[in-house]
């Protein structure tokens, strides 16, 4: 490793340092505001180093990580998302009877794990990043440990993540045992040259996909999702829904990119089945869900299913679609959960549909933000989600994945139903007496100005990109162009 390499990996270093600094600062001076500021400062610095790294053309740093345009794109996405989560967490944590400073440390280490994931080109870095992320998340989910729900969620997540991690490692070992390679490039060759007789390799790949599928909450590894989304504190849910999924999907693309080349291959079929099941089950499960957090959890299952469709469509355009859709999905999800976070109180999270009754009248701005986010999730025009869905349809059509594309179309209609249920709750006058016995937390929660400002800015981003996606699309195309497309 040379000094030049150090500059190239400066984003990783900056992020690590930030985590250390925040931890040390918390040890010396317990100040919530300070912790937040340091966190944001560190994340901003990390973001800044991206430009430094981008200006250098050194690529691979050791076998383990590669700091190419693809990596930088996703590091930028992840750090930005983390910063947003941090801002949205502040008000939420401030009203809870917990010590909030370590929260930011955990957030930063988790992000470090995610960043390692997107940069990794080797099983070792892959595994390391995944575990840093996971272990941080266990603690984050249980952060409000006085709430039994949080503990329950954390335990479930821990056990299931541990088990699926074991699958992942076992799969890696099998693949390694058969092929002798653990690098991303090697994996791509393995996948590209896969023949049906290589049973052990195939088993290994499938077990590897179990680990990935768990993190992405794809059917049938999705069972944890609603429970963890519901049990975890709202900002943590935001994080679980965004950073961890984004990082893992970026990795998936890098390691298994040639899967899409052969539509008859075993791994392709497995993924196609998983995608179809995810779209179908995710959307159906959300159908009449009254808990907004659970509903968003189910919808996330479906969204990841859409993403897999794009993943399965070969080609650079499809890659750009994935990258773009990840940006769209992450920003939209942060916005949606941001609203949940903002409306939550010390007692409980604003997770029931009834909490949103009449929000349009009580808090018009927040309601408008949520509406835009939901419309974006539903993939309607003027929002980034529309462009994302369009790109996926284009990608799927380009690869002639007609079954999956049509399934996407049909199941996303089901999505309209449950997204609009929330919108209806916010704007349509409730029948008399329906709200009896239910307090509306949104009415009492103090409005954190930075949080609301963040949400409005995010909304502006969703809309602006929805109307003029060209810059972001160019960026995404540039990012995926470095991958070795067939």
């Amino acid at each position: 490793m040379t000094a030049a390499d150090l500059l190239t990996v400066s984003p990783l270093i900056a992020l690590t340092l930030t985590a250390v600094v925040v931890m040390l600062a918390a040890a010396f001076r317990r100040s919530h505001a300070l912790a937040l500021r340091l966190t944001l400062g560190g994340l901003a610095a990390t973001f800044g180093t991206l430009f430094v790294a981008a200006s250098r053309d050194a690529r691979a740093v050791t076998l383990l990580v590669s700091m190419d345009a693809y990596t930088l794109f996703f590091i930028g996405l992840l750090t930005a998302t983390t910063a947003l989560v941090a801002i949205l967490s502040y008000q939420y944590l401030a009203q809870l009877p917990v010590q909030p400073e370590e929260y930011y440390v955990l957030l930063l280490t988790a992000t470090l794990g995610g960043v390692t994931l997107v940069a990794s080109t080797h099983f070792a870095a892959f595994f390391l990043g995944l575990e840093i992320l996971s272990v941080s998340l266990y603690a984050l989910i249980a952060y409000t440990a006085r709430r039994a729900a949080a503990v329950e969620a954390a335990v479930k997540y821990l056990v299931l993540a541990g088990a699926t991690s074991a699958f992942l490692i076992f799969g890696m070992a099998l693949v390694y045992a058969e092929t002798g390679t653990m690098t991303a490039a090697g994996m791509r060759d393995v996948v590209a040259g896969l023949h049906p007789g290589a049973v052990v390799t195939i088993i290994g790949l499938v077990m590897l996909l179990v680990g990935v599928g768990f993190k992405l909450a794809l059917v049938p590894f999705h069972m944890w999702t609603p429970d963890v989304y519901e049990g975890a504190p709202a900002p943590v849910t935001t994080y679980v829904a965004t950073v961890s999924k984004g990082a893992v999907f970026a990795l998936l693309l890098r390691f298994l990119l040639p899967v899409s080349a052969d539509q008859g291959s075993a791994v392709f079929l497995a993924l196609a089945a998983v995608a179809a099941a995810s779209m179908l089950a995710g959307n159906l499960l959300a159908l009449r869900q009254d808990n907004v957090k659970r509903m968003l959890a189910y919808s996330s299952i479906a969204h990841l299913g859409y993403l897999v469709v794009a993943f399965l469509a070969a080609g650079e355009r499809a890659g750009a679609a994935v990258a773009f859709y990840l940006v769209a999905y992450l920003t939209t999800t942060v916005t949606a959960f941001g609203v949940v976070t903002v409306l939550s109180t010390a007692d409980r999270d604003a997770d029931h549909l009834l909490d949103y009754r009449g929000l349009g009248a009580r808090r018009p701005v927040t309601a408008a933000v949520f509406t835009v986010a939901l419309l974006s999730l539903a993939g309607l025009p003027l929002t980034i989600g529309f462009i994302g869905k369009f790109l996926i349809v284009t990608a799927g059509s380009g690869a002639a994945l007609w079954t999956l594309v049509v399934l996407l179309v049909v199941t996303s209609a089901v999505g309209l139903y449950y997204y609009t249920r929330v919108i209806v709750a916010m704007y349509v006058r409730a029948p008399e007496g329906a709200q009896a016995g239910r307090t509306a937390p949104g009415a009492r929660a103090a409005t954190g100005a930075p949080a609301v400002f963040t949400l409005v800015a995010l909304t502006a981003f969703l809309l602006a990109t929805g109307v003029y996606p060209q810059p972001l699309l160019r960026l995404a195309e540039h990012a995926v162009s470095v991958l070795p497309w067939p």
Partner: protein
Amino acid sequence: MILLWYVLIPTVAAPLAWLAGRRSPAAARWVALAGTAAPLALVAAQWIAATDRLSAAFTAAGPGAAGLAAGSWVVDLRAPWIDSLGISFFVAADGLTLIMLLLTFGLGLLSVLCSWRGITTRVGAFHFMLLWTVAGLAGVFLALDLFLFYFFFEMMLIPMYFLIAVWGHERRVYSAVKFFIFTQVSGLLMLVAIVALVLIHGRATGVYTFDFTQLLGTPLPAGTAFVLMLGFFAAFAVKLPAWPLHTWLPDAHTDAPTAGSVLLAGVLIKIGAYGMLRFMAPLFPDAVAAFRTWALALGAIGIIYGAVLAYAQSDMKRLVAYTSVSHMGFVLIGVFAWNELALQGVVLQLVCHALSTGALFILVGGLQDRIHTRDMARMGGLWRVAPRMGGTAMFFAMAALGLPGLGNFVAEFLILVGVWQVSRWAAVLGAVGLVFATVYALWMMQRAFQGEETHRLSFPDLTRIEVGMFASMIVALVLLGFWPQPLIVTARQTVDGLQRMTAGTALVAPGADASTSTDGASGGPAVTDGAADTGSAPATGDGGAP
């Protein structure tokens, strides 16, 4: 650039109306009025200014940019949008567009007027949604880039959804969601078809573009073309709505606020016909021809089924909604007949149906505001209470049943005579549909306005605003009934162009040619090689017209 204003004015007026609504409801109404009246004036001015151009004989030939450059298009504007996908902000207007824009803004204006008293809650937001819908509609009719078209096509669903769900009647949420899901699913199917077409075109030529004029004439295998055509058809048939994809419409119309119903029936469902005319048939003429029999059957079933169901309703608004199903059946068979007579009839029907059904919705809405019910079982004998209202209702009931002397008759006659050339039984069923139309129209009159007045209702007759609205619509319909020529002239170049684009395909049967018109007027099959010389000329550009 003038075309951009049609989208921009309502778009800008929408948030203004919302803001104004925070001050006072009246302010919001006036802003909305201005936001629809201004583009209406603009499009009327452009229409008048373009008269010479429109009435000139069709000069150019052939599909594609050549046809566009050759005078049938009034103005066009092309700006890059999403370059990397071959998507541009490409808007243009020809005669058909102008007609649709007139309709959009005219009915937009009426929607504002008819909500003047009926809407009292969240007035600002209401007008925001209304103007947003209008903006989206204008965009739909202007777009020539398929992505842009789809963009607007989907976009205006959102405000319409809110209009129904928030300001609607009893089952507003159910109806709004149903409307939303129906149109979304079908729209997405169309999107898939669009994308597939673009990809096929791209693979064949190396140019990936959503530009409709370039996509024309993409060589497609018959099977592929048929499937893609079905994708388009799904979207437009839902919008239209064609039987059996119509079930969202009665619900949506019934539960929408009056303004919503007017826009829905007046303009929104016209997108279905517009899309078939503008995009589906020129893109897939042979597939459309192969689908003709089925589509005619669906249309004919729709005519009768809609009329019978209209008869069976006791909710007056629902009755009117089902009449739309019936009338749009005419449009469907007209489009698929695809000869000049039928197409002109379709265009005329779009306008006349918008006026007559729009008026009926305004009337029912006004009635509901007064007596708080739409159930005809609770009406009866209202003529005695409100004779002007009764007379107005009678007039529009007659329009609904296609009485000669009103525009609807000319439209339906042209459609049927055009359809007759292609399929006799479809034309006959359509004519039988007129008998059923008589049944439901008169039955509605009897239950609401005639008979004994048993419910002791008493309410004011038409207000001045209402009299003004209805009078303008009545005059327009009578005018169209006796002198529809201005509209026909306006649409003529479009219709000619469509005929030429599809000349030589199975859609325009050489045998049927003689019976329509082309032999008399302009003679012989379309000259497609003329495209070459005019094709080199650049598109007319912004400066070409006012």
